[in-house]
């Protein structure tokens, strides 16, 4: 019997569009030793890491635990 997922369940992911060439460049990068060493397995891993790096650079990104602590305190 097919498993039925609740339709009203909020999605935790959003779809983002990247240029095809950019995705191909990421896929090429995934084949490198550097990517393997850093544990990147999928395109999403690289994009997520890139976004976190840039958010951190702008002083925005905080790790999940830290954000949860802030939420509890408030």
């Amino acid at each position: 019997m097919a498993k039925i997922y609740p339709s009203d369940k909020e999605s935790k992911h959003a779809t983002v569009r990247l240029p095809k060439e950019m995705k191909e460049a990421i896929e090429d990068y995934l084949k490198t030793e550097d990517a393997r060493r850093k544990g990147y397995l999928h395109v999403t891993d690289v994009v997520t890491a890139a976004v976190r790096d840039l958010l951190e650079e702008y002083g925005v990104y905080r790790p999940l635990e830290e954000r949860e602590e802030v939420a509890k305190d408030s």
Partner: protein
Amino acid sequence: MSAPEHFKDQLYEFIENIDEPFDVDFLKSNCNIFYEDRWFTSALYELEDDEKIVKLNEYQYLPARILRNRWINEAKNQVKTQPLEPSCIQLPFDLIRQIQDLLSERKELGFLNAEEFIREAVRRLIQPKYPTTFWLKP
């Protein structure tokens, strides 16, 4: 206008809309008055020189206009069948929300939307690895 020039013009008027390859024999058989082969070959040579017709092989020609139209139609079909679709990936909502918060708070950064921010982030991460890749240049 000299006779060869007049002949050339008349010939082009006839072949202008032929959409299949033709040769001298075909032209001769469709001409009301008898002309020697050299009239046709000479006129065709000049039309080819004027880029009005294209020589396909030793004997056959096709009007350049027809070839151009065919090429345009093929290119149009290719675009229709292979649209330049961007690739989609899934990212955590939480991360997107943080980007959107940052962009609304700091408009001076100049990012128009979250996708632009993400593309810039990827560029910065990958750029040191591929410094010569063309799309990474601003």
